[in-house]
């Protein structure tokens, strides 16, 4: 088909016009809580693989700490933890999944940041986190200062916070961007990168599964951070339910269930329920 450049103008205008008709309609009036209860099933977006928060095991089943937390939410809603469906998303697909309503809530090592809170709502944290650097032992990197050199390549996840930290802590190193933590890990394992930036728990999980090859640098790149359940903002009723549930898991009536899951995935007890309550 011979195309003269003049003919581009009309089709492009038509394309823009066509697509402008598909802009999202007005926000729904009903709370997502009602929608979920009516549906009878909870749909959760899971950032995977982010072991041990959410990842697929050898049988292709989605498992993890955050996955178990999500099951507890389903149990709170329906008295049945199996009334749940997971949608696996990658780092950039997390937000559209809940913004578009495809999923009711999201989990998977997702940290609360103020600039994220502009577009996404978070519950209070259900687990503490921080960002660590995982290094390949053979790279010889022992401190953050060692990392900051042109000889090093660091694997990042594709979100702005990681990019900012890379510029702040190791501006001289080269940076590669990936869409899942396990792709970062694969990059380090295959020698494409010699370090990666990720949630502390995930880094420690990777290091533990390959003890002789990897180390986690002792310095955290951030203060203690909060990982929570995320959802579309503006829906108070839904947020209140989820936040209350998380609160009860962390320091209330469901603390034993929380402690059970925590032990299962981290091999130790969770932080105490309340500082004045002796276990």
């Amino acid at each position, binding site marked *: 088909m011979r195309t003269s450049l003049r003919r581009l103008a009309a*089709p492009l205008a038509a394309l823009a016009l066509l697509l402008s008709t*598909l802009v999202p309609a007005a926000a729904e009036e009903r709370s997502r809580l009602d929608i979920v209860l009516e549906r009878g099933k909870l*749909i959760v977006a899971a950032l995977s693989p982010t072991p041990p928060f959410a990842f697929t095991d*050898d049988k292709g089943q989605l498992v993890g700490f955050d996955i178990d937390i999500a099951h507890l939410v389903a149990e709170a809603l329906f008295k049945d933890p199996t009334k749940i469906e997971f949608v696996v998303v990658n780092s950039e697909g997390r937000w559209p999944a809940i913004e*578009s309503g495809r999923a009711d809530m999201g989990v998977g090592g997702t940290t609360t940041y103020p600039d994220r809170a502009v577009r996404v709502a978070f519950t209070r944290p259900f687990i503490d986190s921080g960002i660590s650097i995982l290094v390949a032992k053979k790279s010889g990197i022992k401190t953050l200062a060692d990392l900051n050199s042109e000889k090093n390549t660091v694997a990042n996840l594709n979100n702005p916070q990681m990019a900012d930290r890379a510029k702040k802590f190791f501006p001289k190193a080269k940076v590669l961007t990936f869409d899942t933590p396990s792709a970062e890990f*694969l990059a380090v*394992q295959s020698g494409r990168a010699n370090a990666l930036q990720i949630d502390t728990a995930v880094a420690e999980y990777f290091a533990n599964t390959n003890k002789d090859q990897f180390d986690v640098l002792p310095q955290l790149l951030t203060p203690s951070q909060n990982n929570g359940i995320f959802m579309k903002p503006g829906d108070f009723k839904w947020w209140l339910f989820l936040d209350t549930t998380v609160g009860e898991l962390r320091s209330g009536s469901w603390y034993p269930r929380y402690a059970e899951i925590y032990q299962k995935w981290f091999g130790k007890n969770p932080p105490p329920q309340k500082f004045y309550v002796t276990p």
Partner: protein
Amino acid sequence: MTSWAMLESTVTLLARGALVSLWLALASLATGTGLAVLLMAPAFSRFGLARRAYRLFVWIVRGTPVLVQALLVFYALPALDLRSGPYVAGVIVLTLYLGALIAEVIRGGVLAIPRQQWDSARSLGLPPGALLRRVVAPLVIRYSLPAYVNVCVMAVKASSVLSIISVWELTFAAREIIERTLAVFSVLGLAAAFYFAMCFGIDRLGRHVERRLTPGDFAGERT
């Protein structure tokens, strides 16, 4: 985990992924063919506007990468409050993409019918409905079958692009496994074998159907 068990679980997962890819391709081919048939109305319409709308649609769908179309549907379209979100989005994307391709194939098939056939068909004096059913359709099918089989193969290959919007199919399954086990060559090699089996199989099936449908000396070399 023993290597045998790992191999078995890998092959099982990949096989399941292959079935999902195949299902996605076949479902989209069905809906895409339906869409393409519907598009024949504007394609051959009396009204210039309809014809241009058709050409615009085909131009856009063929001029942009499938991935961009998939990302547009996945990220930018409003809430499709449906259960299997990514799958439905995937089928929608593939339907539009394959629909445009198949529409062009069918249109090419119609245009390939020699002038004399049209004239003799019209001289038969059949009503338009019967004309379409008994004369045009079989001819179009015969002329467009090779290209249609090509599109079927493209459908299976396009399903792999859906992995990027988190649709769980063969390529996604393969990536999950290699990110866990690092066995890049063997796992992706196996995935390639599955794709090859599906695509090659469709191709062979197509040729078989072609041979059955075209009597003796029908011209037309398969590319």
